[in-house]
């Protein structure tokens, strides 16, 4: 019941959302790489912001989606909701990894280091580890229902844990590294706001689109396995 409604909605919305996401991202990339001005302090390097910040935001959104999906699953116990949070986790790993790598590339020219023990960076690293653990745990459980429940439990615990990780690293850092590199944000000029806005909205829509596609993909995979399993058991019944 939920499955049919969800898949129906996906099929109806995925086209427009995907197209809109594509257009917004193209415009954002064009504005970011070609039109927008360079920052006064950072110079041209500030252009990395237009991919890094939206991707990082999407990683957070994806994890919130996994959390909501997991809570919903524990409540409704519907396999499509499980596919949904599984899909969001897969997309989340992707966005988190890219946000970390682009952040590292941005940090090198601006702070002259690839990595600092900044709470944001560490939280993202932990987020990546949790999501990878989440996906690995799923591959190690054979029973579908158990897999879904265990994954949901892990996602919920990880979600309540992340803010504590953030604050503990922040306290730890202020104690051990009295802010040697300035973490001053970029003062955003109007010319820089436009591409950032386009990219942010574009990637958020892209996230929605990707989760929709991946949910369907996982659902179909599940369906195919079930069908093949059904065929096998039928064949055994005939013997």
């Amino acid at each position, binding site marked *: 019941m939920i499955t049919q409604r969800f898949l129906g909605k996906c099929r109806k919305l995925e086209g427009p959302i995907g197209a809109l996401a*594509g257009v917004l991202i*193209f415009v954002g*990339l*064009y504005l970011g*790489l*070609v039109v927008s001005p*360079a920052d*006064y*302090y*950072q*110079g*041209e*390097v500030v*252009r*990395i912001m237009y*991919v*890094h910040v939206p*991707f990082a935001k999407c990683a957070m959104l994806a994890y919130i989606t996994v959390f909501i999906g997991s809570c919903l699953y524990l409540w409704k116990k519907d396999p499509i909701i499980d596919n949904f949070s599984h899909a969001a986790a897969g997309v989340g790993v*992707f966005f988190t990894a*890219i946000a970390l*790598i*682009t952040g590292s*590339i*941005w940090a*090198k*020219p601006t702070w002259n280091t690839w990595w600092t023990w900044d709470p944001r960076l560490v939280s993202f690293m932990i987020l990546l580890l949790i999501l990878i653990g989440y996906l690995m745990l799923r591959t190690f459980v054979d029973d579908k229902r158990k897999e879904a429940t265990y994954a949901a439990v892990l996602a919920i615990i990880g979600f309540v844990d992340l803010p504590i990780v953030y604050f503990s690293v922040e306290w730890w850092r202020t104690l051990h590294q009295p802010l040697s590199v300035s973490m001053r944000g970029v003062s955003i000029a109007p010319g820089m706001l436009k591409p950032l806005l386009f990219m942010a909205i574009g990637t958020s829509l*892209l996230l929605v689109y*990707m989760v929709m*596609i*991946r949910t*369907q*993909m996982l659902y*179909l*995979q599940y*369906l*195919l396995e079930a*069908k*093949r399993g*059904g*065929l096998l058991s*039928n*064949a055994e019944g*005939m013997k």
Partner: protein
Amino acid sequence: MKLGERESLRIIYFRWAIVLIILGAIGVLGYLRYEKEVAAFSTEALLRERPNQVVRVRGTVVPGTLIKGELESVFNLEEGQTEIAVRYIGKEDDNLRELKQMVLQGIFDPNKMAFSADKISPNPHYGFILAAYLVSIVPLVFFLFGMERKMMMLSILIKEEKGYQPEGS
């Protein structure tokens, strides 16, 4: 029925071809802008080519040579072994510091081996920008394309699987 599914697979390929063309176009535009507004001579190339129009040159501010003023600053710029004297005429700039990589825009006077700049900016680090964009856009394209393709393949497989169903049950 099967033909329809193959058709939709073809639509996916077509759609991605368009996406790649647009991305390529943005890339070309970005490159043209880089050539026009960012690309700079190294100090060595400047000495070799001796251009006589407004050019950009990049290099490191030699420590100990920088004399900063309200409206005019003087310093030496080097890259590798080549050092040139620079006179910058313009507002004082916080970014202008010793040992900092800068890009200057102005005119080179080969006779006096001096460069007079009217615009300065920090090193663009364009390699990092390129790397960041490649690292995010290329995997994104592969990831999403793979997902869409797999979804289509699976739905084709499932439709074909159905064909055998009556024999089993």
